[in-house]
């Protein structure tokens, strides 16, 4: 050793003759990409399992022939060639075959500008189709509020399937059938709105083509903008200001707050406000809720409720966690409520209809705004939800460029925010914003530093402990719904150490939502996140409680944070939701329609409460008493009352915590009463 320092000998392999170090890469593909060789792929995502289906990343491995580089582990001395005639030919043929049964209505496809199939087709130099097209049209599924599923554009890469299953723990779509009939479908080919999809849109984010896309609402927004009898206001979510620029070719993470406001004004919005205002409001409401539970021995940990995909997930899979969820409406829905209460005092409506449009980085927000609980007398609190990309499209439709616009400021009062409201856009942001409030409250004076580095980061499940005087606040931050399970298990076993848990369905948080402009840039997440934190730094206030407009708003309309008035307006409730619709397992024989209909829930919650045994006994009871022709028994999958199983319904009358005696008595009563009159048409 020359200097007495032992240098580890780097292991190397060769790509196209270049010697490259092996530094923990999972496969040859990663090494090649690191060396600047962009091997094409459809099915490779660094955050998903390796699938090896698309056969585009083929390389020639010396001594082994042609292999998929995503599935070859790097080895010292391995020699691969990424550019041989054979490899080029196979890649080209793969694309040609995909094109042969692809719905090639590219000019009318929303993804035509960001389609990987179109890009690769062009890259491979495909000028005509040598294979006869065998495309059989399949129906487009527009049932869901947030997403459109067009099977005609699917290339079967499976990215959506793995994202939904591995990252979100949902698995709403999967491969079905075989060979030429293969398709990615929801269970039983149901529509997306009849299965357990949480509308997070991660499938659309990873989809290389237009097979899964956010559902557009542009037309209804234009309609209201054109209507002379409306006053149309916009609320813009924090993440939009760091995403919109990418739609116009700016580098990821460019902050375009002022330009976005100007753009909304330019296309006809009367006022433009900031969702970060009601994010500040959420901090106060959720902060009060948290401190009350913390001090008063209430149910902890408190889960955040800003992410509608997470809320639906909890409603479907973790009914036991619903009492842990903050009752706060999300900032989007709080804005809807506040706007309708506050704005008539600030803008002369003159009898015109107030229309609230949300600009969101998210698809699940579309679903959230359409829930019944957020619609009063037919008037939704938030009328329309468009994504960042939809706003970009609206601007392009009228020929506006973002960088050609003179930046403008948000309108007051609902446009004023602290940095706490802005950082809602990143994973860990809600936690940090609430800590900036809670720590001050616990300590009794403003904290010296409002930056909580310990909650920032990229891991799917992070934890931190914050010491405030003699109190320790323990928090966890979850991104990707599959990571919730570990905490749900801890809560079930009574050993959950956390006081506050933030859950965001999208990895990275809202800045990486499915409504953001589509990108294949893996660095975008980090750049957008940094931009949000920078945006916080440039603001005058960093704590929600310091927002003077918010203080005024409370004083005039809601009293104190956490008051009765605030609770009535700004909080909501959750319900248990069944995952599969329209599936009942008939366990009786056929008969006539006037029989007594008994349904026994055999879903997970009721199963644990012995519903299967109850069902067995009930079948026995019906058979012993010769009631097969008069009593129709069926097993159903969820009555959305999971904590109170076993749930049974007799002629649609629900009985919870039902015993055999209860259901037998109800059957007897029903048999004794005359059949209900059949309504005349």
């Amino acid at each position: 050793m020359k200097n007495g320092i032992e240098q580890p000998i780097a292991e190397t392999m060769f790509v196209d003759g270049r010697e490259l170090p092996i530094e923990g890469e999972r496969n040859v593909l990663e090494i090649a990409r690191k060396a600047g060789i962009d091997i094409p792929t459809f099915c490779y995502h660094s955050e998903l399992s390796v699938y090896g289906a698309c056969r585009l990343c083929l390389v020639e491995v010396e001594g082994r022939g042609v292999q998929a580089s995503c599935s070859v582990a790097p080895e010292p001395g391995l020699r691969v060639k990424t550019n041989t005639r054979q490899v080029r030919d196979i890649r080209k043929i793969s694309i040609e075959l995909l094109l042969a049964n692809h719905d090639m209505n590219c000019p009318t496809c929303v993804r035509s500008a960001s389609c990987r199939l179109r890009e690769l087709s062009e890259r491979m130099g495909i000028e005509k189709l040598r294979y006869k097209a065998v495309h059989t049209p399949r129906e487009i599924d527009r049932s869901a509020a947030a997403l459109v599923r067009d099977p005609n554009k699917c290339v079967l890469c499976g990215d959506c399937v793995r994202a939904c299953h591995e990252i979100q723990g949902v698995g709403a779509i999967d491969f079905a059938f075989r060979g030429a009939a293969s398709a990615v479908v929801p269970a039983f080919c149901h529509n997306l709105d009849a299965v357990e999809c949480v509308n997070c849109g991660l499938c659309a984010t990873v989809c290389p083509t237009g097979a899964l896309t956010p559902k557009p609402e542009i037309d209804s927004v234009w309609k209201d903008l054109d209507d002379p009898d409306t006053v149309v206001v916009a609320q813009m979510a924090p993440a939009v200001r760091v995403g919109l620029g990418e739609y116009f070719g700016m580098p990821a993470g460019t902050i375009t707050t002022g330009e976005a406001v100007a753009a909304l004004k330019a296309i006809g919005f009367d006022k433009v406000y900031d969702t970060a205002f009601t994010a500040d409001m959420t901090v106060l409401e959720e902060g009060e809720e948290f401190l009350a539970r913390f001090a008063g021995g209430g149910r902890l940990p408190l889960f955040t409720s800003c992410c509608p995909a997470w809320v639906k997930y909890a409603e479907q899979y973790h009914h036991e966690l619903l009492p842990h969820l903050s009752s706060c409406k999300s900032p989007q829905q709080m804005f809807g409520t506040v706007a309708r209460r506050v704005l008539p005092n600030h803008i002369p409506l003159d009898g015109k209809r107030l229309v609230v449009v949300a600009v969101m980085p998210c698809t699940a927000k579309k679903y959230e705004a359409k829930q019944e609980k957020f619609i009063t007398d037919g008037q939704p609190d938030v009328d329309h939800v468009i994504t960042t990309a939809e706003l970009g499209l609206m601007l392009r439709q009228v020929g506006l460029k973002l960088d050609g616009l003179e930046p403008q400021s948000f309108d007051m009062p609902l446009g004023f925010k602290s940095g706490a409201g802005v950082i809602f856009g990143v994973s860990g942001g809600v936690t940090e914003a609430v800590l900036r409030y809670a720590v001050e409250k616990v300590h009794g004076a403003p904290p010296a530093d409002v930056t909580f580095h310990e909650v920032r980061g990229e891991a799917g499940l992070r934890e931190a402990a914050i010491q405030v005087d003699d109190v320790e606040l323990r928090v966890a931050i979850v991104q990707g719904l599959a990571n919730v399970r570990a905490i749900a298990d801890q809560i079930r076993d009574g050993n959950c150490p956390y006081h506050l848990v933030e859950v965001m369905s999208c990895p990275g948080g809202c800045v990486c939502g499915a409504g953001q402009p589509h990108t294949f840039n893996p660095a975008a997440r980090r750049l957008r996140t940094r931009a949000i934190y920078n945006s916080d730094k440039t603001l005058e206030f960093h704590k929600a409680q310091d927002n003077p407009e918010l203080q005024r708003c409370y004083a005039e309309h809601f009293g104190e944070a956490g008051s009765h008035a605030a609770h009535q307006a700004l909080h909501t409730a959750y319900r248990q939701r069944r995952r599969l619709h329209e599936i009942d397992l008939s366990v009786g024989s056929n008969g006539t329609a006037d029989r007594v209909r008994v349904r026994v829930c055999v879903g997970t919650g009721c199963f644990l409460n012995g519903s299967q045994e109850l069902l067995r006994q009930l079948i026995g009871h019906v058979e012993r008493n010769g009631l097969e022709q008069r009593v129709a028994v069926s097993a159903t999958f969820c009555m959305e009352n999971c904590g109170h199983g076993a749930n049974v319904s007799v002629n649609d009358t629900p009985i919870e915590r039902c015993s055999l005696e209860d259901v037998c008595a109800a059957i007897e009563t029903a048999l004794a009463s005359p059949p209900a009159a059949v309504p005349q048409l």
Partner: protein
Amino acid sequence: MRVEEKQTTVDRETGSQTIGRSFEKVCEILDHHQRNPAMLIPILQAVQAEYRYLPKEALAYVATSLGLPPARVFGVATFYAHFALSPKGKYVIHVCDGTACHVKNSQGLVDAIRKRLGLSEDKHTTDDMLFTVETVSCVGACGLAPVAVINEAVHRQVSPQAGVAAIEKILESEEQA
């Protein structure tokens, strides 16, 4: 009509009669396999043995019990030709259409049987639920081509005439029964 939907239509009328007696059996099957998701395929095989097909209600119940997404269970059930998502007849006739059988006129055999039973490429099961006729890709008995398997019994070197004769024989025995 969507291609996908057509393949999964479940006949509730014919299905529900058996389900009543079979529900308990499904629970037993699940218990027998310790409700282990890794045992999905043996569980589906056993459930199909009970119902003669896989009703989607039963698939949903299996998925719920195993903690698997129903879409994944549906995917497995539709991947294997062995699994049926619509009710099958009492006699299931598999005509092999592998390479060896194909060159020995398996197509003529299928056509003759279908003609006798009023079935087609799209209609696999007779209205009286007695026969289901399907083609399969190689049963691994190429030396006996063309091969037809009626329920569990393997028939060798079946000419179109022999195939129809076998059906007549079954019809006769059914009439006597």
